[in-house]
């Protein structure tokens, strides 16, 4: 059975296509403009993405001309789409406590020095040399020992 005839709603698909192209170009322009606060770029670019999504949904997918059932369908998914990140934000997103990930603990010092030396000179190899139980013949994995391998330990090895 064919569905409802939408012939009375004449959509200029070409115009919608040009609008989409324009929005895409706009988001690239926003990226290239590189505002001093990166958050501004993200907000603008996501707004453009929402505008493009509405163009595709309303006109290409014809939702502008469909009945109210579209809200019953899309409302729960939209609520979930917004609710999931919001729910995870306090625990995972907004790190208002110091995370215990080892690489982040040393990251500040290590990477600052590493970047300062343009990645080819200084940069400490300190901290997570975790092959203390290394067996060379097996090609062991690099695991996070989490302990600082201090130079004091070398004295014992040499004697």
């Amino acid at each position, binding site marked *: 059975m064919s569905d*409802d005839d939408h012939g009375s709603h004449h959509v200029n*698909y070409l115009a919608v296509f040009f609008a989409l192209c324009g929005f*895409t170009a706009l988001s690239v322009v926003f990226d290239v403009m590189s505002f001093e606060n990166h958050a501004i770029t993200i907000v603008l670019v996501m707004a453009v*993405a929402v505008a493009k999504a509405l163009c595709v949904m309303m006109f290409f*997918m014809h939702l502008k001309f469909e009945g109210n059932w*579209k809200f019953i369908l899309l409302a729960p*998914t939209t609520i979930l789409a917004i609710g999931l990140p919001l729910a995870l934000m306090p625990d995972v997103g907004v790190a208002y406590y110091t995370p215990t990930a080892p690489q982040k603990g040393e*990251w500040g010092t290590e990477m600052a020095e*590493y970047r300062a030396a343009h990645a080819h000179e200084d940069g400490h190899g300190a901290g997570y040399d975790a092959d203390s139980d290394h067996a060379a013949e097996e090609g062991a994995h690099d695991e996070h020992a989490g302990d600082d391998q201090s130079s004091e330990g070398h004295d014992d090895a040499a004697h």
Partner: protein
Amino acid sequence: MKMGIPIADAKLGMWLFLGTEIMFFTAFIGTYIVVRISGGAGWPGPHDTHIDVFWGGLNTFVLIVSSFFVVLAHAAMGDKRYADARKWLGLTMLLAVLFLCIKGIEYRGKFAHDILPGHIPETPAQAIAKVDRELEAVIREDLAYYTYYELVSVDQPNDLATLVPQIQAFAQSGKADAGDVAKAGDSIELYKKWQNLHQHKVANVSLTAVPSAEVSAYREARNALNEGEKLPELTLGEVTTYLNDMKADQSYGAAVTAGVFDPHPVLYGNLFASCYFLMTGFHAIHVLVGMILFGMALYAGANLNENWLNWVENSGLYWHFVDLVWIFLFPLLYIAS
């Protein structure tokens, strides 16, 4: 009494499915948003992740054009212009293939730099350990030549400490031809260079401060220290220089270049790679499914008639959804990095 929604069953079914697909992608995209915000200033930039806005933008344009063509195909089906519909569907297929090709180019770039989940070192220490590991793998493969062709025999071929002297003995024995002697010389030199790096890495001692792995060199450097001083630690810069020298070598440089990636620590790199491949991978799978849907309509050939109207419309809806997902993936992955 009028019941139900005034659209075809198949269309309602497709919309319900798209609702579940929205939830499916929301899970990954929402998680990426949360994880990206938690990374904050430490999140890798496009230089570290090898993300190029150009390819992403091109893919966006390709999908938008394909969405437009799908809409034209559906309009043609409604007007019973079936030849036109086939043309637009065919073009949509071509654009889908183009999308996957561009994706393939991007993925190949990632593989070339070993940007894969679990493969990326996140600190200089991890990068040094990775170089050590990869170099060991190169050496093992190099030395396997001798055991594979049974030029030497050892009880434990994996035990390099006993294997290497055997190879040396083999080279000096007179039973080896000139090619093998030269090759053995290279293999042993390569092994020694790796051993040097490995010892320094395990002891975490600078390659320049203690020039060799001999105990005498180590003691000499230690004796030269003043009260309370420590030997300088191994740095990533030294390892990079050491590795580049090895890569430039005439004999074994090619093997080392092929087997060892340039060390490049990226904080949160593994998290990024995980999210990236998950999102774009699932999206690519959905593109493939869309191609199957269009393919089946095209396969009908001249039999594409009014019976296929719903199929084309629903395939179009599915394809627009695929386009929608990419419309959100593009700014999140390419611009918000």
